[in-house]
């Protein structure tokens, strides 16, 4: 889950930007610097580009809600050090879909 570091003072030069951590399901973590007022679609695209995959290969989840790409860090109330979970997007049948999604949430909650 996200651990906002409230006790950390915000640097003046970094005021318009936010440092976000994207964590994939295999433990890989990447740091991104994004404007607070810019949509997160660019960040999602850059991450998928580094992995060599298309944009719909990952489901980006922040605080349990999926990021659609049009939100900005200000809208989602993101702070420096917030973690975005990049889950492998899965699809399947109706029952299998439920099972897979539960597995994703299981991994997400760290149970």
């Amino acid at each position, binding site marked *: 889950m996200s651990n906002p570091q409230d006790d950390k003072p915000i640097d003046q*030069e970094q005021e318009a930007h936010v440092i976000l951590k994207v964590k994939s399901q295999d433990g890989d973590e990447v740091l991104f610097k994004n404007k607070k007022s810019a949509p997160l679609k660019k960040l999602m695209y850059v991450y998928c580009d580094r992995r060599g995959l298309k944009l719909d290969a990952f489901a980006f989840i922040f605080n349990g809600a999926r990021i659609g790409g049009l939100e900005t860090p200000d809208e989602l109330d993101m702070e420096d050090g917030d973690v975005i979970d990049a889950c492998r997007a899965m699809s399947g049948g109706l029952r299998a879909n439920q099972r897979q999604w539960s597995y994703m949430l299981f991994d997400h909650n760290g149970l």
Partner: protein
Amino acid sequence: MEPNVVEIATPPAASCSRIRTPTKAETPEVIDVEEYDLQNGGVPNGNNVDYKNKGKAIDFDSMSYGDYGEEDEYAVGSPGDDYGYPESSPLSNSLLDPESLIYEDDENYSEQYDFEMEAEPDNYSMYQDLFDGKDIPTGVEVSMDWFPNSADKESASSSKSSHANNGNNSSKKATKASGIHSQFSSDMETPVAQPWNALPHKAEGVIPNSAYALPQNSKAFQPPYAVHYSALKTAFSNYLQPQTPDTVLGEAPAPAAGSSGLLPPNTPGFKSNAARFKEEPPILPPDDSRVKRNMEDYLGLYLFFKRFDIVEDFSDHHYASKGTTSKQHSKDWAKRIQDEWRILEKDLPEMIFVRAYESRMDLLRAVIIGAQGTPYHDGLFFFDIFFPDTYPSTPPIVHYHSGGLRINPNLYNCGKVCLSLLGTWSGNQREKWIPNTSTMLQVLVSIQGLILNQKPYFNEPGYERSAGSAHGESTSKAYSENTFILSLKTMVYTMRRPPKYFEDFAYGHFFSCAHDVLKACNAYRNGATPGYLVKGAPDVEENSAGMSSLKFRTDVATFVETVLLKEFILLGVLGLEPEEEEKTPETIIVAESSKCTRSRSKRDRVSSS
């Protein structure tokens, strides 16, 4: 800033070279989204390409699956889909016949085939990127070492088809084993089998990604490979031919992906899911084996059914037409909804289960189990909830799945929920919705405690004054008897057509409490008053109000005999005889003739009484 950077693993050195001259404040490990040098020359990959290629995903997936273990080590940093767009048009005609052949031959694997069909949108895009990353020359045949393993998996799964759960476990283990083997073979064969590949072998960190993704996909694609190996070979060679003109054409411009571009890939997914769901009934085997097999699945999923979960498909929600997926909400609204989700996830009581929707934060669905000691005991009551834009200034909108039955003065036939907290009825200042203080959890608990209570008759405005009087109590008893009959009907409606994502819960719940319901109905038939039975002491009456009415006893007996018992038998509940001592339902195998005998003896017993 420094402690934050120190804790994180260093990204590969190659990625640092792509970043332009960093500013003083910028740390080298942090990737600036704006200054990132896109490998596609700044042109984003179009979602339209996915949409066009989805119809041919089966052949592409089957061809690229054999190379997945080998290609995956170059997934990080490999170029994007440069040639995806021009390749789609020449392939559409040549691959039409192989597709039809695959559809016809897979009749025996229809259920597993559905999984493969539904896996199209994701797998195609993933494999396409990996496949285009390599410059494989024309005519080169890549090794397909997965073929022997899939044959073993098929035989293993077929031998255990009678036990669905065990079959799933064994297939999962076999899948993981083949994944490990694939990794090993990819490491050994890379320098020898593919000399044309100039990319260096990356670090071991790439392999876990392969181990993670491969087991998920190989399970879905297992049966068609074993059957159509020669057909796949032909398709594979066909696929390699168009690469030659692509090199002449060079990089094709990909269409820009805007906000509207996001919708086309998603919309066919929902439609195709609905279509496949409709296709299931004709393919299903006879009822007995279907019910039995499904119940094993349902019981397993029922035991691990989460109290709060996030699901995807909101198409059958009552308020699905209000608002859209791409609608933008204010920051405070989204934050408040997330707080609501957090509260529900932590504090839901054990009789309430909630489902939220991934792409629609404004929708919610809840089920409330009727409490013991009420006429609604063991019933399931579903509510669809919608958060308006002005939330939390205005209360949420709640709709009840009534099925045309009014089981409570506060729950109307049309599904309206009459509650001061929701603003659908008047109340004093404390009872109404208080902005920034009232929560969705409070609404659900209020519905459970105040609406679905022991004496629902007095919920009607104006009738509460007569509580305690003889006339009021007798009218309340009659109302409770009628309410219980309607509650039984609601149970039957729920068993026949449970809402989406609650099928496992509904079937498992009624399977578990069928004996309790029948025991309670038997007590009511003997004269007990509804609303006073507790599970632990079924024969003790708390109230001395006396016997229930003759009409109620007759109605309960008739309904149980004609409808409820039949539904429970269809559900797979075994040992439906109240006189017998209760046994574990899974261990009893009852023949059809024995069921008929019991029904006949039950009918005689009813007629004698």
